[in-house]
C-alpha cells in the first residue's frame, strides 16, 4: 500500500509504499528535498521531523538521533517506513566537510 509523503519545507509530494523507506520513495520518483547520504541510518544527513502520520522505523545511529529525539518523531528518512500519509520537515543537511 502506498502513502502520500509531504515535505513541508518545499511542498514536494510523493508516494511511498510501506516496504520502502521514505528516502528511497523520494529518490525513486526523482523528487528532491531531503538530502541523500548513506541511506543506512549512519550519516545523519537525511534527518527529518515527522509532523504528522504514522510509521515504523529501523535502528539509526545515536550519533545523529538521540532516544529522546526519536520519541518526538525526529528520525532519519532512510530508516522510516510509512504506515499512513506523512508530513515532515527537513532538519539534516549536507555539511561542507572540506575546509580551507
Amino acid at each position, binding site marked *: 500500500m502506498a502513502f502520500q509523503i509531504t515535505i513541508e519545507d518545499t511542498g514536494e509530494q510523493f508516494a511511498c509504499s510501506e516496504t520502502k523507506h521514505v528516502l528511497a520513495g523520494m529518490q525513486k520518483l526523482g523528487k528532491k528535498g531531503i*538530502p*541523500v*547520504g*548513506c*541511506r*543506512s*541510518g*549512519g*550519516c545523519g*544527513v537525511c534527518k527529518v521531523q515527522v509532523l504528522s502520520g504514522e510509521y515504523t522505523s*529501523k*535502528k*539509526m*545511529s*545515536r*550519533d545523529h538521533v538521540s532516544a529522546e529525539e526519536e520519541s518526538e518523531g525526529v528520525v532519519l528518512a532512510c530508516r522510516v517506513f510509512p504506515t499512513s500519509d506523512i508530513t515532515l520537515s527537513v532538519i539534516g543537511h*549536507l*555539511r*561542507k*566537510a*572540506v*575546509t*580551507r
Partner: protein
Amino acid sequence: MAMTGILRPGHVQLRVLDMEESLKHYVEDMGLIETDRDDQGRVYLKCWDEQDKYSVVLEPSDRSGMDHMAFKVATEQDLWRYESNVKNFGIETKRIPAGELNGCGERVRFVAPAGHTFELFAEKEQVGNGISTTNPAPWPRGLKGMEPIRFDHCLFYGNNFEENFKFFTEALEFQLTEQIVDGELQLAAFLTCSTKAHDIAFIRSEEAGQLHHASFLLGSWEGVLKAGDIISMEDIPLETGPTRHGLTRGQTIYFFDPSGNRNEVFAEDSYVYPDSPVLTWTADNVGQAIFYHSRQLVDSFMSVTT
C-alpha cells in the same frame, strides 16, 4: 628485510547497528570470510589472501563509525619504539592486553591529532589464505561475492590537519605519496607505510575523527564491474562508480554498509618506493583528481562520513 617498522593496516574495527544485516553485507555480498566471534558479540572477518586471522572486526553498537584502525609492526621492539615515539610527540598511549581481541598480541592504543583512534600490534594468529605454501594454487575455490583480496586502507576526515600530518610522517614514519593542495595549503594527504599508493589518507575537515571509507583490494577492473552488479542485485546503497580516481589512479566503486559506513572496492592503483616523487593535484582540478572521468564532485562523497 626490506620492509621494517609499521608493515601494513592490520585491521579496522567498525561499529554496526545490526549484526545479522552486517554479516549478510560483509560475508555474503562483499565476500569476506568469518573466522571467529567473541563474548562481546564482535565478529572477526578476513579477506581471502590475508594470512592473519582477521582484518575486519564488526562490533555491535548503537552508533555507526569506526572504533579503531590497527597497524601491524614487524617486531615487538618496533611496538615499544613507536609507543615511545607517540609519547614523545605528546600523545598519551594505553596498552591493551594480549587476547582482548581474539588471537591478537598486546596493542598500543592512542588518539591521533585528527581525532581517530589507532592501535599498533606486533603479533596476530595466522590462519593462512586457504592455499598450500608448497606448490600453491593461484586462488582458493569457493569464494563469495566481490572476492576482496585484502583490507587495503582507510580514508579519514579530521581536524588539526597539520599536526596530524606531522604525527604520521614523523612519529609513525609514514611517507607522503600524493596530495591535494590549494596554494600552500594541503587539503588532502595520502600516506604509506609500505610501497602502496596509500595505507591511510586524510582530508582536511572541521570535524574530528570521521571515517570516510574502509577500502578493499580487488584483482581487476572486471572485478570492480562485478562488484557494481552485486551492489544493484542486492539493493546495496551505491554512491558512485565504477570509475577511476586521478589520485592513486585506482579503478573504484563506493557503496555503504547497512550501518552507513562507506566501503570502497578498487583495483590496479599505483605504487611508490622511498625515492618516488610526491604527486600533487591542485585544488582548481580537484574534480579530476577525485573522479577522473566525470570530473564532477559528488555532494555526498565530499560531505558524508560516519
